């Protein structure tokens, strides 16, 4: 049986029970002006608004790649062999508005600005019978983009 999964830090993303279900970003929607944020916040950041009327929302799991890189160092805190030769990082625009900055799954040649990506959970290391996971994005195959 697979280890239970726990987020590396609580409050940033969901960890669905179903391993086939993609995670979502835990964000905030301002009830006064409609702006969305990740991560969560209590007060709207727009200088014209600053409303305290905010609500929790879930965002994603798909987004559009704004920029990317491939870091040629092991991912900090990971014992996952996949991370030893480096890892992708992207800035991804969520359909709700926020731009998020998280690791990317795949090799540099697979990334293209403007492509559609989907969020997934990735195990950094095992910790007392639990898998510590982070959220990352993986490019969606062209044939699956319309779904």
């Amino acid at each position: 049986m697979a280890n239970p999964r726990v987020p590396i830090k609580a409050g940033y993303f969901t960890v669905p029970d179903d391993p086939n279900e993609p995670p979502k970003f835990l964000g905030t929607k301002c009830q006064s002006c409609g702006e969305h944020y990740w991560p969560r916040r209590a007060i709207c950041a727009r200088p014209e608004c600053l409303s305290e009327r905010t609500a929790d929302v879930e965002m994603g799991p798909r987004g559009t790649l704004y920029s990317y890189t491939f870091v040629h160092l092991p991912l900090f805190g990971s014992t996952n062999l996949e991370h030893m030769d480096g890892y992708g990082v992207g800035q991804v625009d969520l359909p709700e508005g926020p731009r998020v900055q998280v690791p990317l799954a795949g090799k540099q040649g697979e990334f293209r600005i403007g492509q559609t990506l989907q969020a997934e959970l990735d195990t950094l290391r095992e910790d007392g019978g639990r898998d510590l996971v982070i959220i990352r994005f993986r490019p969606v195959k062209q044939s699956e983009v319309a779904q």
Partner: protein
Amino acid sequence: MRDVAVLGVGMYRFGMWSDVTNATMAREAGMMALRDAGLSFRDVNASYVGHIFAQVMSGVRVMKEFGLTGIPVQRIENASATGSAAFREACLQVAAGTYDVVMVLGFDKMSAMIQQSTQGTAPENMEDAILPAGFFALWATRRMHERGMKVEHLAKIGAKNFNNGALNPMSQRQADKPVTVEKVLASRMVAWPLTTMMSCPIGDGAACAIVGRADLAKKLRPDRPVVRVVASTLQSEKYAKGHLFVGPVVGPAQMSIDSSKAVYEEAGIGPEDLDLVQVHDAFAIEELEYYELLGLCKPGDAEKCIEQGDFELGGRVAVSTDGGLIARGHPGGPTGLAQIWETTLQLRGEAGKRQVKDARIGMCHMMGGGSVCVIHLLQRD
């Protein structure tokens, strides 16, 4: 408001100094600045100390090296912009009439910090996944996409800063022969497309500026021109669409645009009046973007201007004349004060082989993670 001048400057060369303490580096930089100003520590009314990585109380403890005179000592921290923020505080207090002579001292041992953080820090933050090099590499990829920037443009900035650093005895990185674009491109890849020679090193060091009433400058050192601080700003982020909240972040770009507009307005000058500029070139892509954000060239022209050599020594406006963060180094707390050291020497005509001819006005620009932008304009009489 009273006129403010840089009375003296000093530095302890940046480098990997595992055997040298913060107290030693700071004392030597501070005593050099006092001698340069023609002052004794007895003349100092107050001190602002900038350090990022040293533990609590380090500022007030290190200041005891100069003698226990009872002056106010205050620590200032603003990430990479720590030294610049401390300098600004001193300028504001002298301008307001609170003090006549203030010592601004920055020191850090980033090498010790890196060792600590790799010895068992739990990565409990989402931020830990993305290194500064990765963050700035994202700027570079986007720039390639939007403006057709080539990796050679970044390599040219790296080579320029290495070669400027070779003319600066206080520079951490000292190339023994001229650095070429090819050499920068062939250095180790950190985060595509940024290589090690397009990135600042880890280091230790100290720097000091004595700030005081401008009329004192003439009295103390009648032999040389007065270097005035003619504008100062510190701004934090203003929210806009696409704002990033998680990760090692400086920006948005608008912050450097707004900050530079503020100092140009305060000094009543424009970017065309600048003779030399120091920027937060922790990575070459930053320097490229700041050319445009600070108004040194039009948006979209940076690549063309790099090809023309506009920002090299002897070019239209020299940038990172001392080697910048890439070559001179970036220990943290003292970095912004190293920019003041360089600009002050340049405006006095004391910058040796890297002297910018007839330099009259210089800009010092720093970004601090979190983030803030700090800019000062220095002008000689």
